[in-house]
């Protein structure tokens, strides 16, 4: 099958890291990612089925991998070589369409009895992501055994398959996985007002999910680009401000006082950081109210940050990774209800992966939101 593959090549990762610093997404040209003809992944057991991807999104975590910017934390919970792509709508051999739930938890790994989090339904907290009959990998798209969405074929366990209603387009269906992330993040927020930092795909979807779950919640969002401002407001933000204006906006909205160096005496009880950068985390801590919570939804990395406000104001820092299975059900309702398929701005064939990655890495500046690979016209796929 035709697939984009990430190999464990330290020199390539180093080159990607250097290139990615100069131009986000440039790691695609010099890094460990390449387009190859590879053997299709073998189903680990008879239960597993083949999925031929139709659309596969490009996520921020994918971009971090390609640019060599991922944390060493992932080292033992991925397996090389792997095919990226965990935002997948595909097709089974019987022609039916499915969205893949990519988390590779105990059920997919043949581990029985499952770990305590899996038993409780918290697939995203699985304690066995490096064990069982699969190679290590926290999700499809990071695991050698399963393949990933950036290919013409991958395999999936039946528990990972979510049937796609006929009326849902592929563009809408490919938004279900990131929407499930947002639904999960929104479920963790328990406050009357919230600041959402970032208006990329994850930020916009989080605003949508917050508005859906907490009708009366007051949402202040940051957005860099005009189209992001418009979408953020349309999807439910009460006010949208430029990133540099957040502190002032939060001050005004909360009636906080402002000290001489600009820091606030109050803030919002919940901040959702959908960027995960050093700057965004620092800002999140500055605008969180005493006793508030910062929800880290965007994938962070190794950062240096002043944790004094966290200590002095007793702010909690809480991760929000992936989803529970039921978050997908909610996402499947939310995507058509809010017409989230419109967030897919452009699609590319695999052969133009460098262009696709570059577009995704600068999506905001180029007026785009979600960039995806379109596998529907790949010759190899249709010959399988």
């Amino acid at each position: 099958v035709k697939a984009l593959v990430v190999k464990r090549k330290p020199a390539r990762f180093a080159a990607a890291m250097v290139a990615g610093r100069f131009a986000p997404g440039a790691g695609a040209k010099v890094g460990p990612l390449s387009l190859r003809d590879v053997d299709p992944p073998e189903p680990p057991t008879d239960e597993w089925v083949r999925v031929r991807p139709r659309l596969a999104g490009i996520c921020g975590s994918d971009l971090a991998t390609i640019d060599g910017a991922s944390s060493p934390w992932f080292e033992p919970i991925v397996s090389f070589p792997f095919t990226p792509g965990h935002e997948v709508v595909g097709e089974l051999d019987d022609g039916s369409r499915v969205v893949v739930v990519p988390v590779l938890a105990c059920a997919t790994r043949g581990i029985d009895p499952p770990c305590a989090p899996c038993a409780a339904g918290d697939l995203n907290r699985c304690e066995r992501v490096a064990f069982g009959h699969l190679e290590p990998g926290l999700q499809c798209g990071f695991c050698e055994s399963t393949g990933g969405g950036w290919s013409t074929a991958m395999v999936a366990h039946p528990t990972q398959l979510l049937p796609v209603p006929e009326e849902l387009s592929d563009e809408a269906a490919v938004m279900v996985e990131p929407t499930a992330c947002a639904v999960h993040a929104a479920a963790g927020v328990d406050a009357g007002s919230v600041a959402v930092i970032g208006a990329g795909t994850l930020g916009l979807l989080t605003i949508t999910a917050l508005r859906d779950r907490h009708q009366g919640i007051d949402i202040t969002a940051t957005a860099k680009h005009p189209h992001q401002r418009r979408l953020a407001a349309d999807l439910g933000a009460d006010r949208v401000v430029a990133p540099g204006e957040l502190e002032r906006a939060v001050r005004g909205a909360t009636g906080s006082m402002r000290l001489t160096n600009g820091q606030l005496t109050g803030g919002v009880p919940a901040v959702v950081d959908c960027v995960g950068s050093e700057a965004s985390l620092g800002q999140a801590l500055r605008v969180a109210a005493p006793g508030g919570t910062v929800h880290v939804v965007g994938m962070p990395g190794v950062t240096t940050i002043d944790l004094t406000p966290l200590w002095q104001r007793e702010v909690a820092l809480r991760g929000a990774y992936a989803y529970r299975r039921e978050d997908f059900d909610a996402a499947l309702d939310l995507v058509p209800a809010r017409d989230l398929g419109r967030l897919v701005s452009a699609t590319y064939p695999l052969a133009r992966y460098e262009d696709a990655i570059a577009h995704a890495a600068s999506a905001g500046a180029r007026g785009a939101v979600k960039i995806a690979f379109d596998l529907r016209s790949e010759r190899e796929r249709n010959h399988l």
Partner: protein
Amino acid sequence: MPRPGFVLDVDRSTPPILFHHGESFRLEKLPAGRSRVIYPAEPLAALDDVDAAIRDALERPLGDSEPLHALLRPGMKLTICFDDISLPLPPMRRPDVRQRIIEAVLDQAAAAGVDDVHLIAALALHRRMTEAELRHAVGDRVYDAFAPHGLLYNHDAEDPENLAFLGTTPQGEEVEINKRAAESDLIVYVNINLVSMDGGWKSTATGLASYRSLRHHHNVKTMRHSRSFMDRHASELHSSNWRMGEVLKGAGVKIFQIESTLNNDTFGTSGPMSVLQKREWEWSGRDRASFIAMKAGLDRMPMGARRKIFQSWKAPYGVTSVCAGEVDAVHEVITQNTFAQQLVPVEGQTDILTMGLPYICPYNVNSVMNPILVMCLGLGYFFNLYRGQPLVREGGVLIMSHPTPWEFHPVHHPSYIDFFEQVLADTTDPAEIEARYEKQYAEDEWYRHLYRTSYAYHGVHPFYMWYWGCHGLAHLGKVIVVGGEARSVRRLGFTPASTLDDALEMASDVVGRDATMTHLHNPPIVMADVT
């Protein structure tokens, strides 16, 4: 004999016309055959002996009032209130006329044995005046005699302990003013009537009021029905203040009003700035060289240095009249004196009105002219410098020249920054802004704190600036800013243009290619009497 203001019809021989442009200038060639320029009158003769004129005004009051000395007695409470830093513009050279008047009043108070005297800067919701600014206004002698004892201070519109509620007008407008003033046996109010909007009952009912009271006339509805607010009898803003004046009178508040007028000598008759006061075709070779050198020098300077130079300019204004006594009688005479200097007859409206906005407006003395103040100066003050009907026809185009930097004074204008970043990013519609945002800003604790303890304009002040321009906004078909920072201009809801030619091209989409054009050659201040 000073020459009166007049209207010049532009022909091919007309030289390029001066446009003020913030801390610089532009010279613009106006289209011949369809343009005209409204020039201000030359400065009227100043009083030879200002102190004598003041004494005379105090002795021979207008209207139903006794002379000041007859109103003074031992044991009484006397409060002298005076206009704040927003007047005059630019600040006048020492001695300020307020100082001269206050010293004369204090002399009489001392002679009458009055020893309970307070002096209050009637700044409403403006920023507090600094010590240096107060010294400039009242003079060192007065400042040193009163300020160290806490007897000379800024009005605080957010001090609940020092506000007195005096009642409501028949229209339900609440009247709440400074308690010390309200409870005094006599208020002496010292005005500088720079424009015809100033003075009258507005002095006390606005200058000493609280937000609770001000909101009844500083709002969109009132300002839209003030056509213009420079014409007292056509101004709902003034009608409201006059109604409040009735409440003040009914509550027993006794006011001895002193109003004064200045001439148009804004830039002097010598030095490089004097060329700004001359008509272009009368510029000598020396004037031209001086102007070119001044402009070249300014354009090469960093903004901070330019601002410092302009803000340090003190106008050599001459005092042309002083009247004292009963509020209405004084104000009628003084308004006519103001008109005598500033009013120029103009026949008919124009399709395009142009104006060069200078570096200063009432709210950026020793500060930064931020984009909201640019809007207020252009669409508020300059647009409203008319009597009869607006200079520009309904649906016409206003072209303003100003650099409009995205810059704010962080101490003076904190709520302006938020207003610009948040409110205007959402909407520029005055009514919507008023309905959705005013209360939040007006009651914001931080803004209140900064207004009371620092040198910040009140949280609601940028709203008032926007309302000030709402008549213009509703009247105009398009507003274009020449030479302005594009993103600031767009945030204001206006259209940026690099040159006047570009602006005229844009304007032609609204008013056609043969549109008439009028340039308001201001400052020095000129007001159009449009028939």
